[in-house]
């Protein structure tokens, strides 16, 4: 079968997508240890039976609740030093006083990454560690189906009231007797979200008809996102929170009966980093305060430093405090000091229950727990015999210690199991990806040849003995692995038909690789002439491209380089610009040396220079050359200098963009233009910048559009400005008073109509050129219109301070095309790789990083009333990958305009693009498999893996589009 390079590359990428999907499924397993819910008071263990006959413990039921009313105040993004540090002293005087002198216990609760609100709420309420994939899959947070504290409380007949973030309402629908959800939609809203919670407080605190009150305050998180942890707004917000805590505490104290105290819990779901964002695993993001305040606690001398506990411990502790069974999937330990005031027998009972639940979740008996249980039984025997209290107490303490150690081992082995990988699926995925990469690498010489098509031998491998042997062997391995595997395996759970299909695919790829290798050997046996020539003709750009690609791929193995990947790309494109500058210098100056003096006659000049004249001007102008030579000479002179200056202008643009958005981890806290612009004092500057940017976008895009598209584009850009004005990001010059903020649905939809219109008219042109005539002019206009439609969509979705990124993107593309690539006559492969590099750099220029926290989810809500899954995911993905996507589309536009020079340009481009994407993915997947027990696997490597995976999906789509337009 004969295949063109483009088709070959796209089909390779499609197979690779399958491999990546399989690998991701194996790497991010759905929680294996998820036991179903059960009835509230089902099969709970009795106290361990004392040895010896005749003695039975009378404690078989669940212990009664320890607290009458519990109030949980969850302050979003409350970092530990906001309460325990100097800020707490300054702004939260009441809380500080309670911590130091009152009846309270304070801890630092450690949150596990991803430090995002929804998984953290799950962790707090179920006690389990939500998988990393939860963040991605559950952006719309559907109801929580696992066993959890709220469900248990509701089943036990507790009346729960909730005010705050509506994530809770979605997670626990119909669980609350009364609720008021506030949405976290407008991050710039600092007061309203919290006032909506506090306004209910006075009324609720007076009432007696509730048992559990949950308050979730969002304001602090919003302040952190917009202004960072050191802004004066944080202090004011903390003071407000302090007053609320004071009110609640006093009200709880006033109604208390001595025998049945109330409990106030203050916690944060996650902290914030030095920039005020969260999602990663820096100390600031992970450490949150956890306060238990109740009059039943004994007064004590203040601890110098609060003890470190896990966030998951709260679920078990609250379950015990409320007299509920501990959630089945909880991996937390009971925080003993909270129940420290109870009798020894009760305490032992609590830790026994906790241990029982953990060992049941682990599904195996640990010797430490068994030992604790037997000594517990002995202790009960002594207790029931009525032994001396002094000895009993000491003995009890010993048993307690044994239990606590057992709990610790149980918890740690459970936490490890959460990160259990499905190695078999991962392996199968890796094999597919590596085979695709090898196939691509082996077919480089043929795919990049001038004809850009090659023979893919389909029938010989499919009918060879080897194919069937490999197939059989793989199936045998599959059977063995799947029957012997203990843990759940995704690939084994697939139907037999699919599994065999995958096996056949693997073996077919393998046979393909083997035949390709055999062919290259055959060819190399023939007398070789070219290799020596080709190896010596490597230019600096080729060396840089090769070194840069290899260097970047290798750098993925180090966590810091993954965190700071933007530095790698900025470094590489800077160097690329400098090398291009050198190349241009050589073109402009050195070739001139062989040229006689400039003052020679026009005729001689035009004859002599025919070899290099094309370098400065497009070939088409050659015919005009002789007529308007004198003026042309002048233009050429100025063109030369513009051409020489263009790399420097691009470098300056890149430097400006770099300081627009600081990303990464180490230097993310540095001040940047983006933060300066988004702060509320600089709204007018932001408006001006946005308006200028939109105007620039229009001028840069319109020159190659048809008239209708031009008008549509202009209206669309106007629509974008009015959309941003409607949601309150920018202001109109004539509008001074504050207007009420809306969601801007109408404006956004207005823009969507124009986006669709432009894209449709472009597609129509494309189809026309495909079907009716092969006019390259119509085709390039069509492509450019599709491209400009995408630019318009990106302009709508980008935050206003990011609009300059779009402008510079278009500017650099124009300059590169006009002054660098055309004059230098770079090959399609070189241009593709440069486009890929710039695309990667722009991914980071627009403020992305390799952490989950920088994904701008708000792009998914533009023009939508509420969360609709498919469009939201599409829009978010488009906004996130806008940089690489726009560059890839520009590549297509450029290459198809170059078809006259190199008929296979698009095919070469498609192939190179596929290769550039599969190389880092394949290497990264192997690296991640090797580093799967690395300390930073969840905080650094997994998010990057997700980014890479999504990028492969997008690249596959792009390559398919390439192939479709190619013919």
């Amino acid at each position, binding site marked *: 079968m004969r295949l063109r390079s483009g088709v070959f590359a796209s089909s390779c990428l499609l197979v690779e997508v399958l491999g990546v999907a399989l690998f991701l499924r194996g790497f991010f397993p759905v929680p294996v240890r998820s036991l179903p819910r059960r009835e509230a008071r089902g099969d709970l263990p009795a106290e361990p039976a004392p040895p010896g006959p005749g003695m039975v413990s009378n404690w078989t039921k669940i212990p009664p609740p320890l607290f009458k009313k519990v109030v949980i105040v969850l302050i979003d993004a409350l970092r530990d030093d906001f309460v325990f540090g100097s800020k707490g002293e300054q702004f939260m005087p009441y809380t500080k006083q309670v911590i130091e002198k009152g009846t309270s216990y304070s801890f630092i609760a450690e949150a596990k990454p991803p430090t995002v609100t929804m998984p953290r709420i799950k962790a707090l309420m179920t006690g389990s560690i939500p998988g990393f994939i939860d963040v991605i899959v559950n952006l719309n947070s559907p109801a929580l189906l696992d066993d959890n504290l709220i469900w248990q409380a509701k089943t036990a007949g507790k009346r729960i009231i909730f005010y705050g973030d509506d994530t809770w309402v979605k997670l626990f629908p119909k669980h609350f007797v009364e609720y008021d959800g506030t949405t976290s939609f407008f991050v710039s809203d600092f007061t309203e979200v919290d006032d909506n919670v506090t306004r209910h407080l006075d009324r609720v605190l007076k009432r007696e008809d509730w048992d559990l009150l949950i308050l979730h305050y969002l304001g602090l998180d919003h302040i952190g996102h917009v202004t960072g942890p050191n802004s004066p707004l944080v202090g004011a917000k903390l003071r407000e929170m302090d007053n609320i805590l004071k009110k609640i505490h006093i009200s709880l104290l006033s109604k208390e009966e001595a025998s049945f105290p109330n409990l106030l819990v203050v916690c944060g779901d996650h902290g914030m980093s030095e920039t005020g964002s969260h999602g990663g695993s820096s100390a600031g993001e992970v450490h949150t305060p956890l306060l238990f305040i109740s009059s039943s606690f004994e007064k004590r001398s203040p601890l110098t430093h609060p003890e470190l506990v896990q966030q998951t411990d709260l679920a078990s502790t609250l379950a015990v405090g409320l007299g509920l069974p501990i959630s089945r999937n909880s991996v937390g330990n009971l925080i003993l000091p909270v129940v420290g005031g109870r009798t020894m027998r009760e305490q032992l009972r609590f830790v026994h229950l906790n241990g029982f639940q953990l060992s049941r979740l682990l599904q195996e008996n640990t010797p430490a727990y068994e030992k604790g249980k037997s000594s517990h039984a002995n202790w009960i025997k002594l207790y029931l015999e009525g032994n001396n209290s002094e000895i009993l107490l000491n003995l009890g303490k010993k048993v307690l210690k044994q239990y606590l150690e057992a709990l610790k081992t149980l918890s740690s082995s459970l936490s490890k199991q959460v990160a259990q990988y499905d190695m078999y699926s991962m392996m199968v995925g890796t094999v597919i990806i590596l085979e695709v990469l090898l196939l691509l690498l082996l077919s480089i010489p043929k795919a990049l040849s001038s004809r850009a098509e090659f023979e893919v031998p389909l029938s010989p491998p499919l009918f060879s003995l080897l194919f069937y042997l490999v197939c059989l062997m793989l199936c045998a391995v599959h059977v063995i692995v799947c029957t012997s595997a203990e843990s759940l395996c995704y690939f084994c759970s697939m139907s037999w038909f699919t599994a065999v299909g995958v096996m056949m695919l693997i073996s077919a790829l393998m046979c393909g690789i083997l035949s390709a290798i055999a062919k290259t050997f055959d060819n190399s046996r023939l007398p070789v002439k070219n290799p020596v020539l080709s190896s010596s003709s490597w230019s600096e750009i080729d060396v840089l491209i090769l070194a840069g690609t290899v260097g970047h791929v290798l750098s993925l193995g180090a*966590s810091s380089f993954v965190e700071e990947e933007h530095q790698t790309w900025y*470094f590489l494109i800077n160097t690329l610009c*400098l090398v291009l500058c050198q190349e241009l210098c050589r073109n402009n100056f050195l070739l001139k040396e062989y040229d006689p003096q400039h003052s020679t006659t026009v005729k001689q000049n035009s004859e002599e220079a025919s070899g290099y004249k094309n370098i400065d001007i497009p070939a088409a102008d050659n015919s005009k050359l002789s007529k308007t030579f004198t003026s042309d000479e002048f233009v050429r002179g100025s063109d030369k200098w513009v051409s020489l200056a263009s790399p420097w202008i691009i470098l300056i643009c890149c430097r400006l963009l770099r300081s627009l958005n600081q990303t990464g981890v*180490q230097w993310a806290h540095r001040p940047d233009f983006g933060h300066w612009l988004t702060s509320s004092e600089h709204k007018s500057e932001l408006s001006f910048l946005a308006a200028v940017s939109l105007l620039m976008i229009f001028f840069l895009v319109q020159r190659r559009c048809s008239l209708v598209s031009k008008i549509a584009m202009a209206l669309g850009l106007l629509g974008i400005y009015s959309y941003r004005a409607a949601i309150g990001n920018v202001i109109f010059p004539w509008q001074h008073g504050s207007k009420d903020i809306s969601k801007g649905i109408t404006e956004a939809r207005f823009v969507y109509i124009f986006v669709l219109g432009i894209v449709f008219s472009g597609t129509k042109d494309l189809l026309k050129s495909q079907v009716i005539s092969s006019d390259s002019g119509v085709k390039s206009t069509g492509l450019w219109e599709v491209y400009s439609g995408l630019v318009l969509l990106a302009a709508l979705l980008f935050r206003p301070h990011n609009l300059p990124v779009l402008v510079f993107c278009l500017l650099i593309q124009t300059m590169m095309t006009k002054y660098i690539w055309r004059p230098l006559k770079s090959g399609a492969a070189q241009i593709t790789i440069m486009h890929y590099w710039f695309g990667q750099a722009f991914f980071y220029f627009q403020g992305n990083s390799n952490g989950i926290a920088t994904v701008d989810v708000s792009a998914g809500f533009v023009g939508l009333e509420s969360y609709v899954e498919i469009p939201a995911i599409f829009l978010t993905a488009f906004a996130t990958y806008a940089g690489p996507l726009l560059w890839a589309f520009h590549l297509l536009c450029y290459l198809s305009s170059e078809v006259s020079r190199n008929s296979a340009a698009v095919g070469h481009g498609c192939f190179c693009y596929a290769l550039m994407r599969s190389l880092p993915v394949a290497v990264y997947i192997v690296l991640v498999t090797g580093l799967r027990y690395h300390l930073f696997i969840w905080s650094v490597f997994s998010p990057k893996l997700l980014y890479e995976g999504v990028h492969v999906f997008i690249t596959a789509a792009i390559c398919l589009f390439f192939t479709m337009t190619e013919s």
Partner: protein
Amino acid sequence: MKEVEVRRLFAANLLCVFSVILTAVVPAFLWDGFTVLGTHLAWLCICSVCVGTVNVILHLVLKPNRSPKRSSLAHKISRFLKCCIYFFMSCIVFHAIIVLYGAPLLGSVTETFLFSVLLSTFTTLQCLCMLGPNIQAWIRVFSKNGATSIWESSLQITTVCSILGAWFGAFPIPLDWDRPWQVWPISCSFGATFGYVAGLIIAPLWIHWNRKQLTYKSR
């Protein structure tokens, strides 16, 4: 003739290498508290000055490019002034390039500028000594097969090595190891220095190995 030239080149380059090593060692005896890492800026100054002086002296002593015509004193002075201006301009250009690469624009200007002075000393100063303030000659030397003597080949190699060294020196900056040598611009200036030293040593050896293939066409 050629062998003798190569030996002279080797000796001259070794002297430069020694001068670099001495700048790291000697000031510690004279000045309490001097370390290359701790007082890096001082070392940058000392190294630039020493390497610059050694280069100028070597150039005056060895006279690798015999100028055909004797020139007047005024001409010499104007040449010297031109060289100074060129050197200063190259410092500025290097500074600009480093800023474009991501060095802070306003913060740590001294560090960046001293680093660019060091780079200029390793590259531009040599060119100025060897070729004079003649841009055409520079372009000729730094194009393919443009060298006309072993001195110019050596110039090519050391210059490219210094710049490559500085380029590679930027690699460890993003790593979170918190080492003292990761502070800006230490790793880069070390990279440049090591590249320069390596270039000085490699150049005569490379010329020696390739002496059969090297044919310099005289202009």
